[in-house]
């Protein structure tokens, strides 16, 4: 099955590959995997403490083209968003944007799970929620 142009574009030029400092109190890390296909997705956000907005997002993904494209797109969308806005990102929007076929929908679910895991990790690090 052919990948869509958008998947290929993200695959060839992935945005925001890399890591943020996990020890930074403003950084949230989400790490999720899919045992069936072996994909592993690590997504990190850094929140600006003054504005409360996500100022940077990075990912490191092992998986198929769709998993990489879903992670790449997710980091693009996360930048500039508030936590609440980020929580509202749905996997269906990723499916739509990348024109993912049904067999690759689980890649977008993984990306949404990673976003939620990163936000949860960030929130757990904040003193007010301790």
């Amino acid at each position, binding site marked *: 099955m052919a990948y869509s142009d958008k998947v290929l574009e993200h695959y060839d030029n992935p945005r925001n590959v890399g890591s943020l400092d996990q020890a930074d109190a403003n950084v949230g890390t989400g*790490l999720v*995997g899919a*045992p069936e296909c*072996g994909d592993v997705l690590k997504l990190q956000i850094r929140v600006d403490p003054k504005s409360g907005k996500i100022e940077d997002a990075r990912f490191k993904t*092992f998986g198929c083209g769709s998993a990489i494209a879903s992670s790449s797109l997710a980091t693009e969308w996360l930048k500039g968003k508030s936590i609440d806005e980020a929580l509202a990102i749905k996997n269906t929007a990723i499916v739509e944007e990348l024109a993912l076929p049904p067999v690759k929908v689980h890649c977008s679910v993984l990306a949404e799970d990673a976003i939620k895991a990163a936000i949860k990790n960030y929130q757990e690090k904040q003193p007010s929620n301790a």
Partner: protein
Amino acid sequence: MTDHFARLGLTPGFALDPAELQRRYLVASRSVHPDLAGEAAGADAARLNEAFAVLRDPFRRGDHLVTLLGGPGPNEVRQPPAEFLEEMLELRMAIAGGATPELAATVDARRAAVIADLAAGFASDTPDLTRLRQQLNALKFLDGLLRDLHEG
């Protein structure tokens, strides 16, 4: 609920002697072989084959056992332990850069450690079924990685 252990006259448990499993399978096969026991035994033979296939594979055996014990299904607990995923990501990245015999040995050793941990966990008087499901997810990751290593 199907109990594959009972079908082979075994007490449910994760630790299992492969030779003993094989022996019981062969003995039981004789009594349900269609050539010896007639056409009607065909369904029994199929069930016996399924029980053997499930029990001989560590992942499928553990999956069956967690289910028998009333633990969470693979859709309820979908992740392996977090630190395992970190390790997995590093291993996958390293292998993508070129599989070496050392990396393959690392994966083998890791898989053996997870299986030993599962055996210890299932042997407990009060098994932590959520944790065991997480460890089974880890085993599934390692099985997939080994498959990719051998195909690649």
